[in-house]
């Protein structure tokens, strides 16, 4: 059998129409889900953040004072940063301000990657190395916060001269 008759006899029109419809709807549905995945992630992230902010309120008086208030006897340490480190410092300061303290390093890194920061691991590592970010103690062990007794300066005053 040839021609249009052959198509009709083999249900060709139905198969072709359904085939096109299935392929289109599969990829369109997949595209829709993937386009909304970031939105879904944000929603999922907000839930633990909501609870952690509540937990923060409960924990702050007991376990968190060192991270927010530098001890009077503690000297302020001055550190100098390179241009790249300064950029990372400003970026992470803003980001953690939004996320709230204490923060998880993993979460901060993921957010930084999403927001397109160049070499986020390196930047965060430098801030940790220079003591600008420290691990919390007590019940918040495993989370991190900004160290308040470290100061970023443009130039470090020469201590040895001053001491003399």
């Amino acid at each position, binding site marked *: *059998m*040839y*021609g*249009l008759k*052959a*198509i009709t006899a*083999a249900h*060709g*029109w139905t*198969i*072709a129409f*359904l*085939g*096109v419809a*299935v*392929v*289109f*709807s*599969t*990829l*369109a*549905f*997949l*595209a*829709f*889900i*993937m*386009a909304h*995945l*970031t939105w879904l*992630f944000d929603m999922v992230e907000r839930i633990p953040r909501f609870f952690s902010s509540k937990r923060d309120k409960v924990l702050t008086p007991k376990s968190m004072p060192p991270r927010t208030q530098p001890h009077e006897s503690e000297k302020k340490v001055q550190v100098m940063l390179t241009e790249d480190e300064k950029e990372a410092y400003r970026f992470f300061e803003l980001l953690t301000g939004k996320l709230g303290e204490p923060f998880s390093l993993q979460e901060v890194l*993921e957010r930084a*990657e*999403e927001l*397109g920061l160049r070499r986020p691991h390196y930047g965060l590592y430098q801030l940790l190395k220079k003591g600008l970010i420290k691990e919390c103690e007590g019940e918040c062990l495993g989370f991190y916060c900004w160290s308040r007794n470290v100061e970023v300066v443009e130039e470090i005053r020469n201590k040895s001269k001053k001491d003399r």
Partner: protein
Amino acid sequence: MEMILDFISNTGFAMADYRHVIMILVGCLFIYLGIARHYEPLLLIPIGFGILMGNVPVFKGLGLGIYEKGSVLNYLYFGVRQGIYPPLIFLGIGAMTDFSYMLAQPKLMLLGAAAQLGIFTTFLCALMLGFAPNEAASIGIIGGADGPTAIFLSAKLAPELVGPIAIAAYSYMALVPVIQPPIMKLLTTREERLIRMKDPRPVSKRERIIFPVVGFLLCCFLAPAALPLLGMLFFGNLLKECMVADRLAHTARTAIIDAITILLGITVGASTQADVFLTKKSIGIFFLGAASFMIATAGGILFAKLMNLVSKEKINPLLGAAGVSAVPDSARVVQLIGNREDPNNYLLMHAMAPNIAGVIGSAVAAGVLWSFMM
């Protein structure tokens, strides 16, 4: 003297006829295109040599030919007949492919769907020309420009046509740089070819890990017959993206895919024995395959133009041509054509999105056709 005459009559020279010569020339052409022109050398060289192996005339009954039970080639051909090799190739492709271009611009996935129009149009054309529905479905899938998918579907639906279909599919895949550019130029204006695309957004690691799982479940729930191909594709990609199974991902994208490509190429090539291959049907398959490929290219381009009519953000219609799943050749052709008009227009990463969507689309199309023909 009689022994000498016997020996001479048993040599390939005495048994060969013009059909063997034609096929040997085709095999040599494939090898030439692979080596000298760099057209898909990893595929054309094994297939070309396989054609030579399959077309050395041998005595039937000695257990040498690929179609003779018990022969070595017949054992190797088992992987083609049963559709074992194509999913393993997909595993390797999944472990090599970076889906992030597609995830960054999900709307370009629709171009990969549009390019599958070639499959269904050719299916109808093949029915019109008198092919049986199973054969028509196998011929139509050539338009997906995906060799493993074409082999998989034809092994399931029309095993006797695996040779011509595979050869047609791989030939057109290799000829992407020749077939697509004229269609792309014909269907687009210079202004359209000059359209620049926005930079894709960065895709997080978490998205890249979740995608293979979500993609697999969604596609296979909608088209379960695509399970062997898509399952392996997404599994391979999960191995790559999860970063904790690097050894497996590395093996999938190197040792496994290379070994299977060799076996697939050699056996598909050897299956083109002159007496089985040189038939009217094969010629019909080659014509329909070419038509299918062209319609697929045109379908993608025209759909991109259609999207431009309704979307605020313009898409370069050349990207539609990358909807056929010849990865990454059709994306490279898009980049080349775009670059000719504007040397600073970088379309390659954007073209990878419909290109990869095309792989998924053609596997879904194969699954749909298989389920209808079962």
